[in-house]
């Protein structure tokens, strides 16, 4: 659970520490110094090899977002986390656009949560989830950049004692037009920093249609050290005197740690000790992580597995299935009398769908490094939410926030696991408390990471619709039963027993996840069925299953109505022009309605999440029980495209994650514990199964939508609908081995 740091007033003084990471290409090692200023060579190596260098105190800055060095290097501050989605590059492009600086001179650094706290959250929110990194911060980041430009130009005008309207600026070079005199941002930055900033509200931002830097398919600014092993992830940190730890929690969620036999492992090589982290988690600390983990696996532990040990997947699945038949006050949208309309219809269509638990499997396992010296805490964390990590540190140690600091490291993906759940930070803090003055790196084994996740929630849906004699839809009844993320993570968000979040994508109103259909009558219901298995956000969150439920069922309805799936949808989308726009764009590029190659069948789907509109057309062939995806076309309207190349990469990535989720084995529960422990029993999609992805970007420039997640929810239904077209029967049970299907 994270705390809101907004209302914290504990701050005594700025908690700024100089922090240097040096990636050494030749030696491959890592040196890290605290408290010293870097020399120039080191600073250069920072900018070359580590774009995530924490912001240094004392560097001159024009404003919170921009610092410019005398050599014209532009340092852009990025508060959001980078985990591969390209947010750092996109935000830097938007700043560079308004700043009118030289892109070749741009580098980035990260304000720490401690620095942000000290400056009254000058950088706003740090959290990076829900595809919000760019869309939520674009306005204040661009205004900050524009304000910096205005101050820099004013500083040049003041220096030359000329009217500011006689100056122009291009790529960081300011020219006095009447005389041709020139100066650069680097030369006037110090003077600019002394000026009173303009009111951000008074600034007119550029029309995105005129962008020259933003909106371009620029290369990522942080790729070079990802291809030679020098990028430092949390797992790679090496600090002087550092110890390592591996953790183990009760295999059954909710169970307790009764006892362990420390004597059995304390003499193993390198072992420093065993730490009881809380009433269900234990850690072994050693000089290296492999020794810690080896000793942990040898540690005799007695657990009280608790009531959860009596629960297996069959029980959870049955509870969901029963939930679909329960009658009660479950409704969230009620427009007309859908139940009555369906009952009196010429034809009734009904289908029950199932989607399973999913694990995140971040390739970089959960980890954090914490050092507690006296009354100060420092942590090095791959996190999606620096402020959340900051709060977790304070909560776990009891040390006030202003004495805590978090150095964010780029994450080996996040996928929702490193944001609202900060258990990996709390655990590391608890271990470090036992070793004052010593940095302790706590890494979860892959097995621990997989079996103590916050899983994508399991869900079932009963979808019911009516058709009149002409095949027109008369009513839609969507009834979802499943586990609630809010029940695990944010119970206060559940109002009167109703949890809107689980019906993401079925909302009446935007901007985030609006249903794209206007049904003559509609009833949506959510029946909460929780188990002892913790659930949380997983890329795309509840749009994953809801997209499947809605869009697979729309195809079933179209078939029952004897209508074309695209036309059947279009009729119901006339009040939702943006949804319809992407659907039509995907259909056009996907050659919908045109002949396919022999044996190839098409499927189509559209859905909305994260304020963006997505649609897909899939072409598949099915031989025996083997599915080959022949073509995948996506259309995305995310309002503004800040970097089209990286946007396409996000869509390509969402396809891989979604295809794995609909074809690969799922997470199951056996005697209360997660049965799948590693990638041998929970395999992820590989290159050989990955189809080429074609992308059509259709921004309408009148809103800001997300990119990282939106398209994931249309992959499954588009492919499933194509499969259904191929095999002549609907597919409803995911993953699709339950339908006797596997991916080539």
């Amino acid at each position: 659970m994270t705390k809101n740091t907004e209302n914290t007033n504990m701050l005594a003084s700025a908690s700024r520490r100089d922090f240097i990471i040096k990636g050494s290409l030749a030696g491959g090692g890592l040196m890290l110094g605290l408290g010293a200023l870097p020399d120039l060579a080191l600073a250069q190596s920072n900018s070359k090899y580590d774009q995530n260098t924490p912001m240094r105190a004392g560097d001159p800055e024009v404003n919170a977002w921009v610092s410019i060095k005398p050599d014209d290097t532009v340092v852009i501050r990025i508060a959001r986390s980078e985990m591969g989605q390209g947010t750092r590059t996109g935000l830097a492009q938007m700043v560079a656009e308004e700043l009118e600086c030289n892109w070749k001179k741009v580098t980035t650094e990260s304000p720490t949560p401690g620095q942000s706290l000290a400056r009254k959250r000058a950088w706003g929110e740090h959290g990076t989830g829900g595809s919000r990194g760019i869309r939520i911060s674009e306005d204040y980041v661009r205004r900050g950049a524009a304000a910096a430009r205005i101050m820099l130009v004013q500083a040049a005008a003041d220096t030359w004692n000329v009217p500011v309207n006689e100056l122009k600026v291009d790529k960081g070079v300011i020219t006095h037009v009447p005389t041709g005199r020139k100066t650069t941002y680097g030369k006037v930055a110090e003077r600019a920093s002394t000026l009173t900033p303009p009111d951000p509200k008074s600034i007119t931002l550029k029309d995105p249609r005129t962008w020259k830097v933003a909106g371009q398919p620029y290369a990522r600014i942080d790729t070079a050290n990802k291809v030679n092993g020098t990028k430092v992830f949390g797992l790679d940190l090496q600090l002087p005197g550092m110890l390592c730890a591996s953790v183990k929690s009760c295999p059954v969620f909710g169970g307790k740690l009764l006892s362990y036999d420390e004597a059995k492992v304390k003499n193993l090589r390198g072992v420093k000790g065993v730490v009881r982290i809380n009433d269900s988690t234990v850690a072994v600390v050693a000089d290296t992580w492999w020794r810690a983990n080896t000793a942990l696996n040898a540690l005799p532990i007695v657990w009280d597995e608790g009531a959860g040990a009596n629960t297996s997947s069959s029980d959870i699945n049955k509870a969901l299935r029963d939930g679909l038949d329960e009658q009660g006050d479950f409704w969230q949208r009620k427009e007309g009398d859908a139940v009555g309309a369906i009952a009196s219809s010429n034809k009734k269509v009904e289908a029950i769908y199932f989607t399973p638990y999913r694990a995140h499997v971040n390739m970089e396992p959960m980890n954090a490094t914490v050092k507690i010296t006296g009354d100060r805490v420092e942590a090095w964390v791959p996190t999606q939410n620096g402020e959340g990590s900051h709060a977790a540190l304070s909560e776990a140690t009891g040390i006030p926030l202003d004495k805590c600091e978090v150095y964010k490291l780029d994450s080996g993906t996040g996928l929702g696991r490193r944001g609202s759940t900060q258990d990996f930070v709390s655990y590391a803090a608890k271990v470090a408390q036992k070793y004052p003055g010593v940095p302790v790196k706590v890494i979860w084994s892959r097995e621990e990471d997989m079996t103590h996740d916050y899983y994508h929630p399991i869900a079932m849906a009963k979808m019911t619709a009516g058709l009149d004699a002409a095949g027109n839809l008369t009513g839609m009844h969507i009834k979802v039963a499943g586990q609630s993320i809010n029940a695990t993570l944010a119970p206060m968000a559940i109002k009167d027993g109703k949890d809107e979040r689980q019906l993401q994508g079925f909302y009446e109103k935007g901007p985030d996840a609006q249903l794209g259909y206007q049904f003559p009558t509609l009833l949506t219901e959510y029946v909460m069925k929780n188990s002892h298995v913790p659930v949380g956000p997983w890329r795309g969150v509840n749009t994953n299953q809801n997209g499947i439920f809605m869009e697979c069922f729309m195809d079933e309805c179209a078939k029952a109505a004897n209508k074309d799936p695209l036309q059947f949808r279009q009729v119901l989308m006339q009040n939702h022009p943006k949804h319809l726009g992407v659907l039509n764009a995907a259909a056009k590029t996907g050659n919908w309605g045109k002949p396919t190659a022999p044996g190839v069948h098409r499927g189509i789907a559209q859905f909305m999440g994260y304020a963006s509109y997505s649609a897909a057309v899939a072409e598949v062939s099915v031989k025996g029980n083997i599915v080959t995806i022949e073509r995948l076309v996506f259309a995305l309207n995310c309002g503004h495209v800040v970097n089209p190349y990286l946007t396409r990469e996000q869509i390509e990535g969402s396809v891989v994650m979604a295809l794995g989720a609909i074809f690969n084995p799922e997470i199951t529960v056996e005697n209360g514990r997660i049965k799948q422990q590693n990638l041998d029993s929970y395999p992820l999609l590989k290159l050989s199964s990955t189809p080429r992805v074609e992308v059509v970007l259709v921004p309408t420039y009148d809103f800001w939508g997300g990119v990282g997640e939106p398209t994931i929810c249309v992959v499954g239904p588009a492919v499933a609908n194509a499969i259904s077209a191929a095999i002549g029967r609907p597919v409803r049970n995911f993953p699709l081995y339950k339908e006797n299907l596997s991916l080539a």
Partner: protein
Amino acid sequence: MQLTINGEVHNIDVEPNMPLLWAIREVVGLTGTKYGCGVAQCGACTVYMNGEPVRSCSIPVSAVGGMKITTVEALSKDNSHPVQKAWIALDVPQCGYCQSGQVMAAAALLKRIPKPSDADIDNAMTNVCRCGTYQKVRDGIHVASGQKKLEDVLAQYDASTKTRG
């Protein structure tokens, strides 16, 4: 015990059953080689033993003997290996965590089959990437092998070397 890594001999005193991965990472201190699963499924720990790609998480250090180990840090001195160049030009990596292994596997493939077909790539590139960079991995291998031009691949993504900033 001696380990020859990237041409350098390291005298190390470790348990014989310590996996090569952890000797490389925690004893020798080369952290480019990653831990992803520990059971030879993901390939993030790929290194070369006498030039052949292996999954170092599942090889005890006692089995290495005098074989020469090469890690990603020694693939080139300056990101000049054709695979590295293609990876950078196409922005193959997203988060980058698995890419040490992807790069090593791809370079090994090109050494064995200089002009690999798509089927060769399917068979050789079994490394797991959670970001889902596989399409770009395939593109990158085609560019690194000279079978596709960088500009042609970029054009498929409505980009060119001129518009990449």
